[in-house]
C-alpha cells in the first residue's frame, strides 16, 4: 500500500473539468426538462377542466374542441353556485370537515399514544387487526352501516356524516411511527417526576410531533372534501348534502336528460379551489409532517 499510485492519470485537467462541468449542467437541464414535462402532464387535465368550465354548452359539445373558449362564460360559475347551491353544500362540508377532523384527531392521538408508549396484552394483535381493516373493500361496510345508522335514527343529520369515519387507521399508524421516534427515556423521566400521561402527552409528545399532527389535520380535512358514496346515501336533504353530492352530473341535468357539463366543471373547479389554497399555504407542513413521521414500514 505504500506506493502512492497517482489515480488521476496525467489527463489534461481543464478538459476533465470542462467535461465534468458540462455533465453537471446536462444533468441539471435533464432534471428540469423531466420535471416540467411531468408537471405539464399533471396540469393538463386541470387546464382542460377550467377551459371547459368557461365554455357554453354548445361550444363544449362542438366536435372540434377549442383550446380557449370563444366567449368566456363566467356565468357558468355563478350558475354552478346557484344550481348545485354550492354555498349551502360548502357550509355543510366545512362543518362536517372541521368537527370530524377535531374529534378524529383526539382519537388518533390517544390511540397512537397507547400503541406507541403503553405496554398491554394483545397490543400487536390489535394493531395488526387494525391494519387488516384497511384491506377490506369499503363497499360492504356501506350497506351494513346504513342499517346501523338507520336504527340509531341518525339519518340526514351531521352525526351520520361524522361519527362513522372518526377512526382513520392510516393516521393512527402515521402518528404511532412518529411517537416511536421519541426516546422512551423522556417518558420514564416524566413518570419519575410524577407527570400524568395526559400532561406528558400534552407537554412533550404533541409538541415534538406537531408537524405530523398538522399534516394529518390537513389530509383529514381533504378527505372530508372527497367523500362521496356514504354522504350520497345518508344525507339526501339540502340541509346536510355535502359538496360531492352537488357535483354529480345529475345535479346539472336539464329536462332532455343532458348534463350541462360546463356548469358541472365550474362547480368542481369551485370545490377544488379551497383545497388547493389550503395546500399552497400549508405545503411545507404537510411534507415535513410526513417526513418527520419517518415511516419505517
Amino acid at each position, binding site marked *: *500500500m*505504500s506506493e*502512492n499510485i497517482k*489515480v488521476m492519470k496525467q489527463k489534461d485537467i481543464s478538459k476533465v473539468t470542462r467535461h465534468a462541468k458540462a455533465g453537471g449542467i446536462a444533468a441539471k437541464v435533464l432534471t428540469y426538462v423531466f420535471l416540467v414535462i411531468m408537471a405539464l402532464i399533471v396540469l393538463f387535465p386541470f387546464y382542460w377542466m377550467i377551459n371547459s368550465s368557461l365554455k357554453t354548452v354548445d361550444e363544449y359539445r362542438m366536435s372540434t374542441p377549442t383550446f380557449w373558449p370563444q366567449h368566456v362564460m363566467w356565468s357558468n360559475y355563478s350558475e354552478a353556485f346557484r344550481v348545485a347551491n354550492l354555498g349551502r353544500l360548502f357550509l355543510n362540508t366545512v362543518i362536517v370537515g372541521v368537527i370530524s377532523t377535531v374529534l378524529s384527531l383526539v382519537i388518533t392521538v390517544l390511540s397512537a399514544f397507547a400503541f406507541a408508549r403503553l405496554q398491554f396484552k394483545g397490543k400487536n394483535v390489535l394493531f395488526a387487526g387494525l391494519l387488516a381493516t384497511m384491506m377490506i373493500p369499503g363497499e360492504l361496510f356501506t350497506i351494513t352501516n346504513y342499517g346501523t345508522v338507520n336504527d340509531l335514527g341518525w339519518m340526514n343529520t351531521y352525526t351520520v356524516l361524522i361519527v362513522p369515519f372518526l377512526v382513520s387507521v392510516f393516521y393512527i399508524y402515521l402518528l404511532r411511527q412518529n411517537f416511536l421516534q421519541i426516546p422512551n427515556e423522556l417518558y420514564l423521566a416524566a413518570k419519575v417526576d410524577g407527570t400524568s400521561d395526559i400532561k406528558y402527552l400534552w407537554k412533550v409528545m404533541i409538541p415534538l410531533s406537531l408537524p405530523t399532527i398538522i399534516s394529518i389535520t390537513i389530509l383529514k380535512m381533504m378527505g372530508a372534501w372527497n367523500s362521496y358514496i356514504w354522504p350520497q346515501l345518508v344525507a339526501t336533504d339540502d340541509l346536510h348534502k355535502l359538496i360531492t353530492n352537488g357535483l354529480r352530473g345529475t345535479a346539472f341535468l336539464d329536462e332532455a336528460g343532458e348534463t350541462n357539463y360546463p356548469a358541472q366543471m365550474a362547480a368542481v373547479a369551485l370545490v377544488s379551489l379551497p383545497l388547493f389554497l389550503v395546500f399552497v399555504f400549508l405545503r411545507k407542513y404537510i411534507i415535513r409532517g410526513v417526513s418527520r413521521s419517518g415511516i419505517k414500514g
Partner: protein
Amino acid sequence: MKVVLQNVTKVFPSRNKKSKETVLAVDDFTFTVPDGKLVGLLGPSGCGKSTTLYMISGLQKVSGGKIFFDDDDVTDLAAEKRGVGLVFQNYALYPHLTVRQNILFPLQNLKGADKLTKDEMLDRAVKAARLVQIDELMDRKPSELSGGQQQRVAIARALVKMPRVLLLDEPLSNLDARLRLQTREEIRRIQRETGITTVFVTHDQEEAMSISDLIVVMKKGVIQQIGKPQDVYDDPVNLFVAKFLGTPPINVFDGKVENGRLFIGEDAVLDVPGVENREVFVGVRPEGFVYDPAGALSCSLTGIEVMGRDISIVSEKDGKVVRSIVNSDVTVDPSAKDVRYSLKPNKVFIFNKATEERICF
C-alpha cells in the same frame, strides 16, 4: 503529492435571505501541505477549518484563490475527479451495506483505465481492512460496530482507492476519551505507513499537536500561524495562538516594561533588553515557573494538586488564577500564604497590549 492553497477565500451568503451582507468563512488562505506529511488544521469552532477541508475535497466551491494538487490546478475540478479520500465527522457509512461492501463501494465506481477486476477490488479491500485492523469485522453492518470501529472502517473506505490526499473532518470528536488516544495513534501509524499526504481538522489542540507534522492555527477564517507543533508552542506569533495551545493553558498577566525590565504588578521578573517601555500582556507557560523562595514573582497560594509525575501549584496574582507545574520532588508548604517563583525566560512571552502581537526579546 503536495497540496498548494493560494489566497483561497470562501464567502457564504448570510443565513437570513433578506440581509445582503455575507459571511467571510475563509480569508486569503495560503499554505502548502508538504508531500507525505500529516497536517492539522486547528482552531475554535466556526474558524473555517472544516470549510477549508471541504474546499480541498471539492465538496465546497472556492469563492476566490486557487488550489493545486502538485502542479494540477484542481480549483474547479469536481470532487470525484480529484482522487481525494474524505472521512466525515460521523463517518457517513452506508447503513444498509456490510463493512466489506462499504469499503468496496468506491472501487466499484472506477471506470475506464482504472477499472479493477473483482478479485483486485476484494484484495485491495482486505488490504485496507487489515491496515486499519478491522479485517475480522467484514460481514458486520455499521450499526453493529462501536464508534472506534466505525471510524476505522471510514478510514479504510477513504484509503482503499489510494487517493492522492486523505482528509479527515474531526475524526476523534465522537469517541470516548480512552478510545481517542488509541485511535489518534492509529491514524498516525496509518499515515506513516502509507506516506499519504493527509490533512485533518480538529478543535482539540492536544490531538493536533500530538500527531501532526505541521499545524495551522486559524481564527475567524484567517491563518494565525503555521509551523511544527513544538515551534508554534514555543514561539507563538500572538496571544491567541499562545492561549490556544497547551494544557493547562498559558497564564496571562497585565504587565509593563520599564527601561529594559519587565514588571508584573510590582515585581520585576525579567530583564528584557531592547524593548521600549510600554504596557504589555505577559504570558507564562505553567512549566515556565521555578519554585524559588527568593523568586522575583510573588503570588498568594491557593492550593496544590499532585499529578504524580509533577505538582501543579494553584496560586493567585492581582485577582488572576495562576497555575504552575513544577517538578514533583519540590516540597511546597501547603499552609504557607504566599509563594514565590522565578521564571524561565524561554517560557515567558510578551505581547503588544493593543495588537496582541508577540514582542521578541
